[in-house]
């Protein structure tokens, strides 16, 4: 277990004991990544900000559901995904998710793909990937989750998570290469 995971677990235990400072620290450490993940899920919609707050509110309401045996980051990311899916099911919010937005989701540029294209191109190509591939790709390469953790979040086998991420990366490379060829 990494030092960061240990620290987050210790914070989560303190938070379950009633420490507001521990909650603040958890928020500070996790909110930026969770927001980017939600932004990716919501296709760049501004609803990601609302969902971020909803995720942490939900974490608070369900803090008893956390068991110190679980790693905190995948638990919170899984919760964020849960909040997103539940909100998507509500027709009114679904319409809000699909409000058009000109800029692309703020998901990050993968270091592995960095030299193959500009940041804008990479973002556009990731947005064009099948959603399940893009999600597995980002969860693994950007947020550093293991395939076992991704499998637990998505309800699939670890091998399937690995396959989705590597297919996504392969498709991303192909798309970026063709963009590069088109440029030259």
């Amino acid at each position: 277990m990494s030092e960061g995971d240990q620290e987050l677990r210790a914070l989560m235990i303190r938070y379950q004991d009633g420490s507001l400072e521990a909650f603040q620290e958890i928020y500070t450490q996790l909110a930026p990544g969770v927001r980017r993940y939600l932004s990716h899920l919501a296709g760049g919609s501004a609803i990601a900000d609302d969902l971020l707050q909803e995720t942490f509110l939900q974490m608070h309401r369900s803090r008893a559901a956390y068991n110190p045996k679980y790693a905190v980051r995948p638990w919170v990311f899984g919760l964020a995904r849960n909040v997103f899916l539940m909100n998507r099911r509500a027709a009114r919010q679904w319409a809000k998710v699909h409000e058009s937005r000109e800029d692309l989701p703020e998901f990050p540029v993968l270091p592995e793909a960095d030299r193959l294209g500009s940041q804008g191109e990479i973002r556009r190509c990731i947005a064009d990937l099948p959603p399940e591939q893009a999600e597995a790709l980002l969860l693994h390469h950007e947020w550093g989750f293991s395939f076992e953790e991704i499998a637990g979040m998505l309800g699939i086998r670890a091998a399937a998570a690995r396959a989705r991420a590597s297919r996504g990366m392969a498709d991303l490379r192909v798309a970026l290469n063709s963009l590069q060829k088109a440029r030259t």
Partner: protein
Amino acid sequence: MMDRSPKPPEALMRAIAQDLKPVRPSPQPLHLALRMVPLALLVSSLILLAIGPRHDAGILGPLLTWGASAAQFVLAIALVWIAAHESIPVGRLPRHIVYSAAVAASLVVVFISLLTFSTNPANEPLLRVPPRINEILRASPWIMGFACGIGSTLAGGILVLFFSWVFRNSLATRPAEAGALYGAGAGLAINAGWRIACPVSTPWHALGAHGAAIIATVILGALIGRFLGNRRLHIGGRRS
């Protein structure tokens, strides 16, 4: 647009600060499922304690009478374990495991019912009750069907309510599915006890009355799971 700095917004901090009482961490799925065993065993044994084991238990033998019910009970707890996995954001099991368990549970009930019938096709409602009542039941077998269907649905309903209370902090992505799983667990656990007491082994009774009760607890679990899920993840944050 909201402040994107990593500092929590004030409204969120206020909401958190209002309720910061210490909480006890939930057990892991296996521990949670095992904690259900005593109550599930007690509720599923009620009918057995009330009217005793079926009159043909000797013909069926201990394996088909008690062993088959024990297997069904273990499967019921396995379904609760899967529901507990579904209820945590990092522990979801692959879909094929969830669906295989649901199919296996259905097949086990059908198989045990048919095996019981083929071993001893008992269709006489011989209960350890006054002979007059046995006469009425013999004349109108549908009464027995209704009694088993409604009785095991009520007993299963009690267990579903208990499971729903235990799963009140569930963070299932599909709360109705998690509810259906523990509902199926409740139905199966009740049926495990009920089938040892019920003296009728005809397929229409075993699958029609007892099977209908299992389906009813699955539906009840799904409805409660969905209700709790919607209440917990209140869309639009109305509870915030």
